[in-house]
């Protein structure tokens, strides 16, 4: 999985990010919304190990580890856990990466040690 710069939809009127993407800001109902670089640091809220998939592309890669992550900027995302299971409460860094089948996806990894 390759990491790229992490971006979130960001409201130019109230300067707040949100997720999933919208064309109108859910906080102030204004626009425009632009993708801007964001801090991917956050905390694992809940996790699951997926054993059953509707996708032919993902099925060979089962089981898959997926988490809900609360980013420090307040935004909640669902992301792959790239390095396997993490306990609830674990600190992670979310980046723009790819799913095991190569599709664009958010990926959470433990912070670099030190």
């Amino acid at each position, binding site marked *: 999985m390759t990491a790229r710069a992490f971006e979130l939809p960001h409201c130019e009127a109230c300067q707040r990010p949100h997720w999933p993407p919208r064309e109108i800001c859910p906080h102030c109902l204004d626009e425009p919304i632009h993708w801007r670089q964001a801090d991917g640091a956050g905390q694992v809220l*809940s996790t699951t190990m997926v054993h*059953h998939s509707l996708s032919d592309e993902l099925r060979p890669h089962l089981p898959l580890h997926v988490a809900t992550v609360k980013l420090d900027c307040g935004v909640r995302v*669902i992301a792959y856990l790239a390095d396997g299971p993490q306990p609830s409460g674990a600190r992670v860094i979310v980046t723009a990466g790819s799913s095991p089948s190569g599709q664009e996806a958010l990926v959470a990894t433990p912070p670099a040690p030190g």
Partner: protein
Amino acid sequence: MTARPVQDYAGVAVAVPVTIPSVRRSEHGTPWWLGKVLAALVRESGIAKDEIDGLIVASYTLRPDNAVSLSEYFGLSLRWLDDLNMGGASGPIALRRAARAVQAGDAEVVACLAADVLGGAAFGALMEGYSSFSRDGVMPYGAAGPNLPFALITRRYMERTGATREDMGQICVAQRHNGLAQPHALFKKPLTMDEYLAARPVAEPLHLYDCVMPCSGAEGFLVMSEARARSGNLPFARIKSAMERHNTYSQDDVQRSGGWPLDRDALYNAAGLGPGDMAFLQAYDDYPVIVMLQLEGLGFSENAPAFVRETALTADGGGLPLNTSGGQLSLGQAGAAGGFVGLTEGLRQVTGRARGIQVPNAQAGLVSAYGTVNFDRGLCSSAVILSKGGQG
């Protein structure tokens, strides 16, 4: 500012619960299923098709048709028509809207219908096109459909409350007992706790028997005035109170409640009843954790895992009869028709006409519903307290 009092539902009758038994694979389209319900409503009520002047329809798989299309499809001439896209929460919400239309005189007889054709590839297709947030924020992560958000909700609930898989299993095992008495249940074998615990994982902590089976099926009922029901000698239920809420507690990091706590006191106060007066709870059961949330949110217990350990949940166990038809965990989930399953069963119970186990002295009971996982949680919650009306 004091809120205006909510008008009651006096004078409204809910009658003729209809269930078209579900199948795993259907060779028919969604209008066929809806038409079978409509025909049964006409046949069982003795009310002619031309006397039905209101229609509300809940379905995911009706597209490219819609509720308007159905008026022509079925040859109905209507003066009140509603297209309800609220999935699992649709039963009590359809009932509320139809009841207000009847009270206001906008319609005399409203047919409330729900049906979906889901099974095999149709379920995957529905999930792919479910919502933009699901497409962008959920399906790329395993393509697990609703199992993914509910696995995340369940894990958090278990960690927060200490609930175990056995606690979740109490709900599934008791409901299967209830479902075995239903002639049309999709699952026809008993479920033991050992079998529940030994099932294969689907999206941990969810295992096979935590998940409803997508299928095809249809449900419906009629809403009219009490006078109309009496003139036709129809058994009917009354609406003591009802609520709906959408996108509540959105600041909770992981969903820990539907909207029920916001209206719980008003719901019971309007009915002049409390949780202890409910002869049954028909709770939305797409996954057992959501039943836990309803037990807590609707005032049955502040600690649902302890409650299910200590309380018989079977329809004939003397505790709290839960999903007396077996619920979707036994009958299967036919999309939006799953949002009607609790309501049709509640109507049968309070009119003393259960197809399976009849709860004795069912004077009043609670039907609650939930649905529409747009991103990481169900957005719609609803509930209705039904009471025994006329006996036809």
